[in-house]
Structures are given as structure tokens and as C-alpha cells.
């Protein structure tokens, strides 16, 4: 299969095709239904729904990033919320600088919280965040660098399994404590908020909301393609080999730590991008995003959807977060019971997640065979699937 181009490989999989087409369709259709139809039309999508869906999509990208390390490389990161939050903070810092003198204190030099804390000048690490390009670079670079440094130490010393999970959790917990401190210069407890605009376009405008939704949807599609390219490559086969038999892989001569480091860093970058898209849509970033509980929740999206498949985590993130929005509104008492139950249920009864359940995989397998025969009738005439 490896010799075929990426798109052709995807086309042979009905589940991936369905999901990606829905995402691409939504990327165009939802903004159009929001912007072009009058608000009393039955097909009009209200702006708050656009933003809500956009938020879910950033979660989907985040879930995808966790799946890449956990589902394919066996690294259960309980600290991916940290990369998400760092990407978000980088975006938040850019938007804080965009406020300029429109803040409560009207100080053009300093964000409001710094004026409030009697800071005299901008800390050096805020330099450059006036520039959109620089901020976008940081969105990618900061989480990537943290993952690289953390991974370099952890993987080189062969910290694996639950030990790795626990220290990733310690990492995000340490960051949580650090960002709570006012003198870190990231707004302390309250974080960064009161954003006005990006590149001069108001955040509250329908156009901006639609654009962010479109970008989020396309980010998920792109994230899928990137992950797909990685897992289908020889590198992808090596990381699965590491997941299944790490020391065997070593004895074959692979430097396991480099492979882990690569996927961990790529994954952190994806999480950072997700965070950067998330913050303008929810309008705030604060230290609670670093809380270990958040990071574990991401894992359950992946587990429920189906790890080790790239469609699973996207579906899982969308399903769980829709349920969360619905139940925290309708039955707030019940939600934590449901979420807790979901953890237990999916680990006990759905080891391969929703997409791995027999009913669903059988249905799609049938579609796949039909499609494959349609595309490459000769392979099937010979009785093999061909490579």
C-alpha cells in the first residue's frame, strides 16, 4: 500500500473519506449558512453555534495530536493540555498586544494586568508579540521546543509507560502552578482576556467567527493528512513497532528515542496550533487549561473514539464535547458521573473505541471492499489485495 499516493490510500477508506468530506463540506457550508442566510431562515446557523462548533474542532485537532503519540507510539501523555495551553497563550499574547491603548487603563505600552500590578515595563518575553508572524511562529515553536527538551530527557533515559505518564502530568502541574503566579507575567489567575481583534478584524464579528471556524475545520483536515502521512510511512511502522515491542525495535538497531522524540514534538506542535485556534474562539486563556484533569480528559476523547485510528479521536472529541455542552447545561449534576462512567466503560468495553466496534467497522469494511473493487478490479480478480 505504501507505494500509492496518500490521497489514493485515503480514498480507499470509507470512514476516512466520509469524515474528511463532512469536515470540508462543513468548513464551507457552516460559514455560508451563517453569513448568507437571514437570521430568521430555518437553515441559518447562529453565530454562537459557529463558534461552539469551531471550539469542538480545535478539540478534535488536540485529540488527533494525543492519538499520534498514544495510539501509534504507546506514549500516554497526561500533559498534552500544556502544549495546547502554550499555543493558546502565544496567541493570547498577540491579541493582548493588539488591544493597545483600548484597555481599561488606556496604557498603550502595557496590558491591563501589568498596569494593575504596577509593572513599569514590558517583560522581555513579551517582545515581538506585536507581530502576527512572530506570534504564529511562537505558537508552533514554544510547545514544540518544550516537547523536544522534555522528550529529549525522558526518552533518552528510557522513562516509559506509567512513569512517563506521571511525569508528563507533573510537567503540566508545574506549569499550572507557575502560570498561576502573578509575577510570571502572564496574567496570573485570570490569564489573558478582553481580546479585541486579530490583524485588525474584530473578534466578535460574524466574519471573524466564520473565518476561525473555517480555519479550525481545515486545520483538522490538514492535521489528519499530516498524521496520515506519518503513520503510513516507514517511520509510522517503526513507531507502531516501538509501541508493540520496544526492546525488539532497539535490537533491530533503531534509536527508539529519536523516533519518540519526533512524534512527540510533532504532536505537541499540533496541540499548540489547536490551542492557538481555540483561544480567539472562547475569548480567554487562563492557567486552568494546564490542569492535569484537562489533559486526562483529552485522553478519554481519544479512548472513546478509538486510538490507533485517525478518524476515532476526531469523532471522540466531537461526541464527548457535544455531550458535555448538552449535559452541563441540562443536567449539571449528572455530567461528572457520565464522564467518569465514560472512562470506565470505554476502557472496559471499548478497547478499540467507537470506530473499532464490530458493528461500525463491519459496516465500513463492506463499503471499503465495494469501493476497492470499484477502484482496482484487477487486484481482486487475482485474489490478493496487492501492495
Amino acid at each position, binding site marked *: 500500500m505504501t507505494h500509492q499516493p496518500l490521497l489514493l490510500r485515503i480514498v480507499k477508506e470509507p470512514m476516512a473519506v466520509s469524515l474528511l468530506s463532512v469536515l470540508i463540506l462543513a468548513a464551507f457550508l457552516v460559514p455560508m449558512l451563517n453569513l448568507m442566510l437571514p437570521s430568521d431562515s430555518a437553515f441559518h446557523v447562529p453565530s454562537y453555534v459557529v463558534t461552539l462548533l469551531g471550539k469542538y474542532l480545535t478539540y478534535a485537532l488536540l485529540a488527533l495530536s494525543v492519538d499520534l503519540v498514544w495510539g501509534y507510539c504507546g506514549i*500516554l501523555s497526561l500533559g498534552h493540555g500544556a502544549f495546547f495551553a502554550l499555543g493558546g497563550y502565544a496567541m493570547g499574547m498577540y491579541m493582548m498586544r493588539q488591544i493597545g491603548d483600548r484597555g481599561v487603563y488606556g496604557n498603550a505600552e502595557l496590558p491591563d494586568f501589568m498596569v494593575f500590578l504596577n509593572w513599569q515595563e514590558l517583560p522581555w518575553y513579551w517582545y515581538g508579540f506585536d507581530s502576527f508572524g512572530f506570534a504564529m511562529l511562537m505558537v508552533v515553536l514554544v510547545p514544540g521546543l518544550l516537547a523536544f527538551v*522534555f522528550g529529549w*530527557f*525522558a526518552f*533518552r*533515559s*528510557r*522513562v*516509559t*509507560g*506509567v*512513569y512517563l*505518564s*506521571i*511525569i508528563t*502530568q*507533573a*510537567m503540566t*502541574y*508545574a506549569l499550572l*502552578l*507557575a502560570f*498561576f*503566579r502573578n509575577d510570571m507575567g502572564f496574567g496570573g489567575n485570570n490569564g489573558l482576556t478582553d481580546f479585541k481583534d486579530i490583524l485588525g478584524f474584530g473578534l466578535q464579528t460574524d466574519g471573524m467567527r466564520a473565518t476561525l471556524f473555517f480555519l479550525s475545520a481545515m486545520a483538522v483536515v490538514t492535521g489528519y493528512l499530516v498524521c496520515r502521512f506519518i503513520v503510513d510511512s516507514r517511520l509510522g511502522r517503526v513507531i507502531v513497532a516501538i509501541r508493540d515491542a520496544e*526492546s525488539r525495535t532497539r535490537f533491530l538497531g533503531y534509536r527508539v528515542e529519536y523516533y519518540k522524540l519526533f512524534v512527540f514534538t510533532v504532536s505537541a506542535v499540533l496541540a499548540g496550533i489547536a490551542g492557538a485556534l481555540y483561544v480567539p474562539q472562547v475569548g480567554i486563556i487562563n492557567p486552568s487549561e494546564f490542569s*492535569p*484533569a484537562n489533559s*486526562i480528559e483529552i*485522553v*478519554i476523547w481519544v*479512548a472513546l473514539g478509538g486510538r490507533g485510528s485517525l478518524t476515532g479521536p476526531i469523532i471522540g472529541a466531537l461526541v464527548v464535547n457535544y455531550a458535555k455542552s448538552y449535559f452541563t447545561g441540562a443536567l449539571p*449534576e449528572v455530567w*461528572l*458521573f457520565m*464522564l*467518569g*462512567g*465514560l*472512562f*470506565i466503560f*470505554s*476502557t*472496559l468495553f471499548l*478497547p478499540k473505541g467507537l470506530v473499532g466496534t464490530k458493528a461500525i467497522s463491519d459496516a465500513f469494511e463492506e463499503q471499503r471492499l465495494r469501493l476497492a473493487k470499484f477502484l482496482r478490479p484487477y487486484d481482486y480478480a487475482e485474489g490478493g489485495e496487492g501492495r
Partner: protein
Amino acid sequence: MLSKTLAMRWLVVLSVFIGLGFGSSTPAHADEFSDAVQALNADNNTDKAAAIEALSATGDERAATVLSALLNGTLFYRQSDGLVVLSKESGNVTILIDPSTMNEVADVSGSEAKKIRINNKLRGQLKGVLGALTLLSKDADKRQNAADEVFKANDPSMLPVLQKAIARESDPDVKGRMLRAQAAIILEYSEDTAARLKAAQTLGEFTDPDISALLGKIANTSTDPEVKKLAKDMQDSVEGRLAAWSFLGNLFQGVSLGSVLLLAAVGLAITFGVMGVINMAHGEMVMLGAYTTFMVQDVIRTHFPAAFDWSLAIAVPAAFLVTGAVGILVERGIIRWLYGRPLETLLATWGLSLMLQQLIRTLFGPTNQEVGNPSWMSGAIETSTGLVLTYNRIWIIVFSLAVLGMLALVTRKTMFGLQMRAVTQNRAMANSMGIRSGWVDALTFALGSGIAGMAGVALSQIDNVSPNLGQTYIIDSFMVVVFGGVGNLWGTLVGAFSLGIVNKFLEPYAGAVLGKIFVLVGIILFIQKRPRGLFALKGRSVEG
């Protein structure tokens, strides 16, 4: 705050005592005394200060009653003629008493009496003077407290009384305190270099932050070079000893935090260390233990209030049984299906922790529950050197070590411990020898959970009992187990205490939050060096 109000209360008691004991023994000075009392009703504070001085100089025992009334705001004067009177609550009415005769003043109505006002400076003077007056008390404890009051006031006018008291004093400890007060007065106010040098020498033997401050002040301000130098040297020596005491204080804080960590982590050392099960709901087991304590105390409060001091003795086994039973349910219901899949176990137990938290929130509400300290756990040992050892912390240290010791005995000396180790090392072999490994698993998990519950009883004494109690400890307990090395109780002990102590020693320099961050980062780096912890098992079998 607390010590201040205590001192006030004490003064009130004292004044009543003196009033009753010596009330009418010295009528000879009646005129001198009543004049001095009358002088307290002066127009300005300077005159009032002089009057206080004069009243105390009379040496009349009734002076203490009047002066403490002045300090407590119960000394009044009659507006018509300025007669100074004491007021006293008697039932709902206030009666006024002539201090000279201790008789009720019949023809004064409450509204005609005006309070004699004092300022903070006078208040300080009053405390010192009252102290000096009680220096001659028969009760050694009162004399000791008085000596400390005089030392704090550091007022040269008290020197004569003080010297008289020193001459009479027989208790060496009280005498030491009096000498300290005397030395402080001499060092600050005397003109005699030799006396001052001797005083500095005397003070240098005490270990007290106030003395260090006084010596520092003299070292900076004195014009006498000899005194200046000696004061400086003595201050350094006091500071040196104070640093040692503060080190001990930090050590105690660290050991105390360590014992809390140990309690929270030792159950994990069983479930994670022995069984390899990552129980993220471990913190919630601790929380359930704390709520069991609350329930036990609730029952005792309403039905057997006299037995309140025994509430913890009942709560410990109760919590063990409750959380142990929950542990069995959890192991049989969830965990046994997930053996060999540690990451899945981690997720499932996390889900369980969310459900338990929400359950408790639904049943008891999200707010903190009131859990009381039995009388033997309240209070503290305090030294003059600033060291405070609270009894509840001391008991928790003892309790944590006892729990660890019991656990070590159970795992090493009992049949159950033997079976537990057999199942961990070779399940198939254990099974074939007739050990029901399923039940051993369940009981081992119950043991770990039960210990968490007992930890909850202890933590309920020092922390808020709320549904989030467990969340506070879960990451720290994992750090302890990972740092100490899995499967090793000794490692857990060393891990808990070293993390506790390091944390408390970092705090003064870095602050609590930053200190904690340093510890976390330290552990993350440590794991790189020793991925299996401080006391790791080595060998082929570990890698699996």
C-alpha cells in the same frame, strides 16, 4: 492575635485575684493611694503616665486592680466631681465601686460616669507596670509571665521593683527571666559601661529574636565603642543559635509535611508498588476516609458528646473498613479486568475518581465539612526561641510511622503478606499452589485503599474536608512513590520525608508555589537519572 487576647484574659483574672486576696490588707496608705488613683483622671496623657507611675510606686496591692481596670477600659470618673470609680457587671446592671474602699458608690448613675481614656503608649506602660506589680506574686507562673511582660515593655522605671523581685526569687527559671528583663533595661538605659557590658553578656546567652533585635539596636546606636562591639558579638551569637532553632523549625515542618505525604502515598505503594495498579482514585479513598471521620464525629456529637475525644479512635478502624470495602468493590468490578494494562487502569480509575467526587458532592454538598480536633490534638509546644510544635502535627507524624510499621509487619510476617508477595512474583505458580490469586488481589487492593482511608482520618485534622480533598494529594503521592522507587516501603518512607523536608527548606527562599515547582522539576529530572526511583529493584525480571 491569640496570645494577645490570652494575655488580656489573664490580666483580668489576675486583677480579680489580687483584688480578692489583698483587698483590705493595707489601710495605712489609704490617703496616698486614693490621691494617686484620683490623679489618673488627668487631662493629658503625660500626666496620666506620671499618675500610673506614682500609683505603682505606692506598692499598694489594690493598685493592680485599678491599673488593670484602666487597661481594660472599666475605670470611670464621675462627671460631677471627678471621683474615679471602677465599674463591674453584675447581672444586667453595671455597678460602680470606689477603689479605695471597695464599696459600692450608691449615688452614681451609669450615664454620669465617663470612661478614662488611654492611648497605645499608655497601654504599653500599663502592661509593663502591671507586670512589675505581679513580679511579687506568690504564683511562680504569674511571676514568670510578669517577668516576660517587663522584658517586653523594657521600661527603666520598673528596675527597682525588678531588683527587689530578683533578690527574693527562688525559682531558677523565673529568676533567669527576671535577670533577662533586668539586663535588657540596664543595657538600653544604664550609663555604667561595666554594667552594660555585663548585661550584654547575660543577654547573649538567651535565644530569642527580641533579644537579637535589642542587641542589634544597641550595636547600631550605642556611642560607647566597647558596648557597641560586645553587643554586636552577642547579637551574632544569638543569631547563630536562632538560625539553628529556625533550622529545627523547618525540619519539623518538613517532617510534618513528609508524614502527610507518607500517609497519602503509602497506600499507593501497595496498589502501585506491589500490584502495579495505577489507582488514580487513591486520593478519593483518602477523601472517603475524611468523610467517614466527619460521619463518626457527627454521630458522637449528637449521641455521645462526652466521648468526643475518642472519635478518632473509632474513625480510624471505621475509615479502614469503609474504604477497604470500596476497594474490594473497585477491584472486583473494574480493576481485575485490566491487569497487565496499566495505562487503561489509570484511565478507568480516573473516571472512578470523578464519580466518587461527584457522589460526595451530591450527598454532602460542595462545601467544607467541619471536622473537630479532639482535645489531646489541640494546642502546641512553644519555646521562647520561636519554635512551635503543634500537637496535631506531632500525632500525625507518629501515626504515619505507625501505619508504615504495621504495613511492613503485615507484608513481611503474616500469611496474607506471604501470599501477596507470591502472587506478585509468580501468579501462575501461586495459583497452582492453591492460593486464590483473585482474592489476594482484591484484599491487597482493599489493604491499599483502607490505608488511604486511615490517611484520610489524619488529614481531616489538618486540611479542609471537601470533595476535592483527594485531588490535592494525588500528584504529590505519585511523586513520592516514583521518587522512592516502586515496590519498596522503605523507599516510600525516604521519598516522602525527603520531599517534605526539601519542600519546606525551599519555601523560605522561593515561596511555597515556586518551591513546589522546583520540587516537581527536580523529580522530573531525577526520574531521568534513575527511571525506577531511589530504591529500585534491579534485574532481568523488572524489565519484563
